[in-house]
């Protein structure tokens, strides 16, 4: 039994070693950056400065929207008292959004702001996860990795929603004068108050930038590393290197699933923290 296992191990190692001597296929040009080019797939006329053409990112956004709507409708139509596997999984995610994100960081306005934070969580989560499916949307309809959230314009739009809702929530609850007054602590001397007010205003803008760039750069970096691993297999022209690199790309792929979930969680929880901070100002 043990001898047989050793034989299989040696055979396997021999096969791997033999791969090193087989010359690989022809070298192909592969630019990782080209994976992120947004060529219009359906060209539409532009209205003023707004280009209405449909590209990869738009198709991924549509796909995410359709998936969320279909899953939500299926689960809502067939709610059971003893949940099946599918319903249980969706309920666990819903509870994570309600108790883990909104419930744990917001003090007041939980019921009012859960719909927004939960919707952002599910939208970003589904967008990140379907970004790991290669769809035939590349050049010449080759399968290519792309995530809508690996596009700065998509994430800036999402972050702008949070930015606008934060100040809307704060002004509606506290009144405009009291809301902006609370940006500086009331106990500070008047001159210092103005300085603190300006610093706070700058930090509000930086929240917008960091919220959008964090999600964008995470997804872009993950997809770029996956692309580099696939590209190196082509460049080295050796089946042995390709085998090792494919093994590495599987590990990175698994890590990217983790990153996709974590980034959706962080985006939603920071949105909840910002909105909660505007509702219950502490100074």
């Amino acid at each position, binding site marked *: 039994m043990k001898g047989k296992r050793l034989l299989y191990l040696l055979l396997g190692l021999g096969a791997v070693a033999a791969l090193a001597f087989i010359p690989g296929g022809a070298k192909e040009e592969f630019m990782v950056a080209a994976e992120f080019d947004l060529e219009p797939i359906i060209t539409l006329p532009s209205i003023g400065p707004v280009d209405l053409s449909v590209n990869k990112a738009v198709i991924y956004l549509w796909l995410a929207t359709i998936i969320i709507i279909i899953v939500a409708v299926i689960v809502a139509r067939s709610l059971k008292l003893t949940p099946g596997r599918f319903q249980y999984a969706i309920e666990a995610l819903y509870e994570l959004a309600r108790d883990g994100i909104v419930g744990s960081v917001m003090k007041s306005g939980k019921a009012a702001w859960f719909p927004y934070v939960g919707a952002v969580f599910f939208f970003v989560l589904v967008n990140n996860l379907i970004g790991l499916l290669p769809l035939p949307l590349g050049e010449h309809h080759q399968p290519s990795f792309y995530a809508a959230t690996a596009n700065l314009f998509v994430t800036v739009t999402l972050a702008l929603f949070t930015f606008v809702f934060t100040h809307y929530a704060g002004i509606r609850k506290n009144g405009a004068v009291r809301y902006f007054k609370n940006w500086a602590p009331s106990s500070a001397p008047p001159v210092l108050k103005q300085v603190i007010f300006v610093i706070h205003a700058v930090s509000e803008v930086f929240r917008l930038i960091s919220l959008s760039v964090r999600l964008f*750069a995470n997804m872009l970096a993950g997809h770029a590393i996956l692309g580099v691993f696939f590209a190196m297999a082509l460049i080295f022209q050796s089946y042995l290197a390709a085998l090792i690199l494919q093994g590495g790309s599987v590990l990175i792929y698994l890590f990217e699933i983790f990153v996709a979930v974590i980034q959706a969680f962080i985006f939603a929880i*920071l949105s909840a923290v910002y909105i909660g901070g505007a509702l219950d100002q502490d100074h």
Partner: protein
Amino acid sequence: MNDAAAKLLGAGLAMGLGAIGPGVGLGIMIGKALESIARQPEVSGDVRTNMFIGIGVTEAVALYAFVVALILIFVA
């Protein structure tokens, strides 16, 4: 040194040096969070939530370096 070489060198340096600070910071933060969970397992839920918020904020610094590196290679 020609322009292209300087761009690539700058991009590599930006990413590498930019990852030092957030790496140290993340290590300290996650280590402290694990320490406090080990001391008080009953507050692990709260600690984990706050740890993720901290991770998000710290990690953004490294990602700025990544964006700067990309700008150096493709835009500058």
